[in-house]
Structure formats: structure tokens, C-alpha cells
């Protein structure tokens, strides 16, 4: 098996120590850091694919994300600065008043395994906070979750706030959560809506025209 395939396989199989050792060895042997990065992201994607096939669950996504982040931490210093800013950044959270986070957590983990750089603001996030964070990290996507009917209007208000601040064109906004539907997303001017966590990754990729 190719060295880089081994890295990918170790991440896919959630063998954290092995994956880290392989990444360190690859760097020491002078393998192109971009290729190492590809090995790491392929492993992360494989973890997400296994979730989609019901072979992995949330626990495995947690572990896969942790291993991937550690491996990325090892390889990133060896990449040119401009390369490290290439990952698409997503700012995500559950809206103000909403403390539900299982679905939002799933989306965050699957986006990470899909190659996105995710800034998870947690639950009960005020509209302005989404925008402040997106501005701070130079995000491309703002992803907003709402599980309750009475909290979903905060998604609309976040989009309105972006418009009022003259920042709407700067970001793609996607919404989701149990209280949302496609017609609702269209009515509030969201750029994308996902019915579930797996679909959210596809929507994010479509929005930025990338593989993440």
C-alpha cells in the first residue's frame, strides 16, 4: 500500500496514533506536503462516507474529526501560507433561543470530514455573532440551524442583518434544522437548505463550487 494511502486508511479506521506517526514520517521523508494533505483529507472523507453508509455513527465522527485535526496540525506548518487559507471556512451554530444541537453537531462533523474548516459557535447564538465570526475568520459560508418554529425566524433576521450591513453578497447562507423547509428557506432568501446533515455537506459544496 502506498504511504499516503496508509495515512488515509489509518484515519478511516480511526487509528489516531498510527495516522500521526505516518504523517510525521511522510514529512521527514520529504514527501510533498500537498500529497500528505491529500492523504489526510481522503481519510477524513472516508470517515464521512462511512457515516453515510451507517457504518459509523456520531462517536466515530468525533474521533475522525479529532484525528484529522491533529494530522492537519502536523502537516500545515509545511505548507505555503497561501495554501493553508484555501480550505473553505464555515461559521455555524444554532440560533438564539434554541438549545438543540444534535443535528448541528452532526453537520459540523460531516463538514469537517468533507474538508471544510468549521467554526462551531454552539447553541443560542445571536444573529450578530454569526456575522462577527464570519468577518473575523473570513468565512465563505454561514450555516444556521433552528429546531423550533419560534426560533427559525432568527435565520431570517440574520440574513436581513447581513443585508442591512451591506455584507449579504459576501457570504453564502445555508439554513437547516427540524423547523425549516425548502419553501421557508427560499422565502427568507437563504442560498441553500438541507434536509439532513449528510445533505448539508452537498449543499455547502454546491454553494462554493468546490470539494471543500
Amino acid at each position, binding site marked *: 500500500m502506498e504511504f499516503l494511502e496508509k495515512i488515509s486508511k489509518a484515519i478511516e479506521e480511526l487509528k489516531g496514533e498510527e495516522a500521526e506517526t505516518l504523517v510525521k514520517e511522510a514529512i521527514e521523508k520529504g514527501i510533498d506536503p500537498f500529497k500528505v494533505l491529500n492523504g489526510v483529507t481522503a481519510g477524513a472523507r472516508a470517515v464521512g462516507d462511512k457515516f453515510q453508509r*451507517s457504518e459509523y*455513527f*456520531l*462517536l466515530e465522527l*468525533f474521533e475522525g474529526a479529532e484525528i484529522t485535526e491533529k494530522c492537519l496540525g502536523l502537516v500545515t506548518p509545511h505548507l505555503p501560507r497561501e495554501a493553508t487559507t484555501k480550505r473553505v471556512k464555515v461559521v455555524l451554530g444554532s440560533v*438564539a*433561543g*434554541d*438549545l*438543540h*444541537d*444534535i*443535528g448541528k*453537531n*452532526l453537520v459540523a462533523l460531516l463538514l469537517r470530514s468533507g474538508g471544510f474548516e468549521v467554526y462551531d459557535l454552539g*447553541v443560542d447564538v445571536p444573529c450578530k455573532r454569526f456575522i462577527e465570526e464570519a468577518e473575523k475568520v473570513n468565512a465563505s459560508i454561514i450555516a444556521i440551524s433552528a429546531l*423550533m*418554529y*419560534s*426560533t427559525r*425566524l*432568527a435565520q431570517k433576521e440574520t440574513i436581513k442583518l447581513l443585508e442591512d450591513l451591506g455584507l449579504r453578497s459576501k457570504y453564502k447562507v445555508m439554513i437547516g434544522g*427540524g423547523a*425549516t*423547509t*425548502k*419553501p*421557508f428557506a427560499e422565502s427568507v432568501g437563504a442560498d441553500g437548505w438541507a*434536509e*439532513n*446533515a449528510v445533505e448539508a455537506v452537498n449543499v455547502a459544496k454546491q454553494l462554493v463550487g468546490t470539494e471543500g
Partner: protein
Amino acid sequence: MVSIKDFQERALTGPLTDKRAFDKKLMLKVRELAKDYGITFNPREVIPDDSMADAVFKAGFDLLMDVGIYHIDTERVIMYNEKEVKDTMRTRPREITLGEGRDKVTFKSRQVVPGDKSVPIIAGGSPHLATEDVYIPLMQSFAQEPTNNGLCPGVVTSAYGIENRARTPGEIICAMAEARWMKEAARRAGKPGIYIDEPMSATSPAAYISAFSQPGGYKKETTQMSTHLYGEMKIPWERVVLATYALQNGIVPWTCCPAVIGAYCRNAEEATIVNVASTLAQLEYNRGSLVALYTVNVRGGNYVYPRDNYMEYATFNRTMRNIPVPVQDLFLAGAGPCTEMVVYELVAQTIAYTASGGAAFLEIHGGGVDDFKRGRLGVGTGMEARIAGETAHAVASMSLTRSDANELVNMVIKRYEDDLIKDKYPTGKTFTECYDLKTLTPSKEYLDIYAEAKRELTDIGIKYE
């Protein structure tokens, strides 16, 4: 049992824990317990034998002892000890009466012993979105059903021109309007004192309390207060605040366990273990006397794998012989009203939950997929409560053995399972499309569909009156 003072103290001084670390520990432990106790459900036996249910109960107890619950605001873990939890289990009442006057109903822990012909309480309702113009007639269509002796509100989307927006005056107005409109629907149906489960339009404590604190609003005699945990095993102050308000004012707390299948829990087995742990945890701080069960399946809404959902409910009902607190099973059909499938979905579930010991069936309605995926308003009709109610009476009168009940459930599921697995839910019709709004009677089409299905169900052995 833990006092509110002790609970608050533990929430402020318990071990400071990273949420992700708590989640990981919970997920690992539930897997370990499922393995150690040999917990595996058999899809052909939706209602398990009692030894399996007891193993699930023990696993749930161990889970709570090991992981505790997580306080979202303080980021600390609240732990209980064995004595506290066992004392609570021992002292919980086996029955409780809610409602007023001739509309009073008594929730009893049903143990489903041979000869027990008690009928679960039927509380239909469409808990999702309903607009102001149809709200009262929609709820009246449930309340007026003869077998319906409870009622469940729908979320009020707006009232008097104000949208229901969390933490705004609109939320308060809508929560208060809901209570008055529900009472009006009950009055029009001739059941003014009917049990109404919990406020649905409120999000914040202020709105929940407002729904009770008004003339013509909800009353402690008829309605419960939401005090339940968030998934999985997490609580914010606002729920403790509501539990305290309920305790101080004699309102029966709403205890609810919606463990999600496909996320922290891999399957129905693990979700049921978490539901037991969650129940025990809630009874400690809210001193509840009823526990509601609601299934969510993250892999495609609530209905994609019916057997997972059905097994979770039936097993949970059986586990409660260990406390025993009456169980309120919240269930619905994925298919829309006025379809064959909505009848069969509701009948299969009614058989399983009646035969496994459910004390009450709440929020019964069709059109679940429309609720969640298509965002149609006003889905669900009183006919669905009729279907579940008449079936519950029939099944209870038959005093089915467990194996007979399982066989019947399998025969009914067979009629729609292929479509369900393929995600082919018929949309059906909305309330305004299949009810005459002047007479509040179902359409001939819907009545004919139900009559034909009943003939077939009678042929396979269900003895309708």
C-alpha cells in the same frame, strides 16, 4: 430524591466538564452497557419479553449512575447516587388524575396482565404548525371524537397579526392565544375540562408561564409544564426554572425522552437505554408522575425505519414495570390524512403500544412527513385520533398475548413497510381538504378509506366494536 436546593448546588459545583468529553463518555458507555447486558432487539418481535426490557432498564440505571446529566449553562455534570434514584422509583405514584369535572381522566401504569382490558387514554392533536384561521376547528376535530379524552395543542404560528418569534412579545402573545384557543376548541366539543398535554407555542420560560397565568388559560388541573431534558442527557437553567415553577404551583411536570436514533445512539436498543436514564434523571428534579416517549430517527425524519421506532416504544413501555410511572406514547403516522397508509401506520402502533403497556397515546395525527419535510400547515385531523382510539378499544378488549400482538403488528406493518422503507409516503390531504368546516365532519372519501381498511383489519383478527 434530590431537592431543588441540592440540584442547584450540584449544577454549580459538579465536575467541570467539556461538553464533547461528556458526549463521548455517554456514547462509549451506552455501547458498553448494551453489549454487557446483551441487549439486542428482534425486529420480528416489536414487543420484547420482559427479561429484555428489564435488561434495558438496568442498563439505563447504570448509565445514569456512570455519566449523570450535563448542565448546559454551567458546563458541570450533575451526579445522583443509587439511593436517591431508588427512593424516587419507589415513591412515584402509579396513577394520576388530570382534567376537570366529567372530563377527568386517570393515567394508570398499565402492566398488561392477562385479563387486563383497560384502555389507554387517547389524546389526539396536531402538534406542529397551525394557522390562526383553522386552529380552533382543527383542534375541535380531535376533541369531539368520542374516544378522544385528551388533547394536544399545535404550534400557533401567529396570533392577532404578530408572528411567533422566540424571546419577543410575539412568543408571549402566541403562547397565551394557544391556551385560550385550545380551551375554546374543548368547550365547543363539549369537553371543557379535557386534559391538554403541554404548551407547544412557547420557547422561553416567560411564555410557558404566561400560558398558565391568564384567565381562560391553561390550569394546573388540566395541563402539564415542560421541564424535560434536551438530548442527550443535558439541561439548561430554563428547564430547571420551569420545573421549580411547576413544583411550587402544583403543576404536573412534563417528563419527556426523545433519544435520537442514528446520532449519539446507533440504534433503537441504545436509544431505549438512554431514554430510561433520561427518565430517571428527570424524575429526580421534577418529581414527575408521567413520562412521555417520543422517537426521532436522524437518518431521515421520524418514520423511515418503523420497526426501530416501534421497538423503542414497546420496549420502553415494558421497562417501566420497574418504576412504574405511567407512560405517554407520543406517536403519529408519516403518511398524510385520507390515505390507506395512515390507517395502517396508526393501527400497527396502537396495537404494539396497547399490548406493551402504554398508558396514554398523545399527539396522534397523520401527515408527519408533511410536518417535517414539506412544511405544509394544518396537517393531521381528528380522524386519526378516531382510528387510534377505536383500535385501542378493540385491542384492549381482546387481551392479546404478547405473541398474538406481535403477529398482528407484523401483519399490519407488512401492508406498508416496503413503501415506508423506500420513503414513499403518500401526502394525503390537509384538514381543510378532507373535513367539512361547517359541520366539522370528515369527507366521505376518508370515511370510505377507513371503512375498507377496517374490514381488512377485522379479517386478520382485530375485533372492532
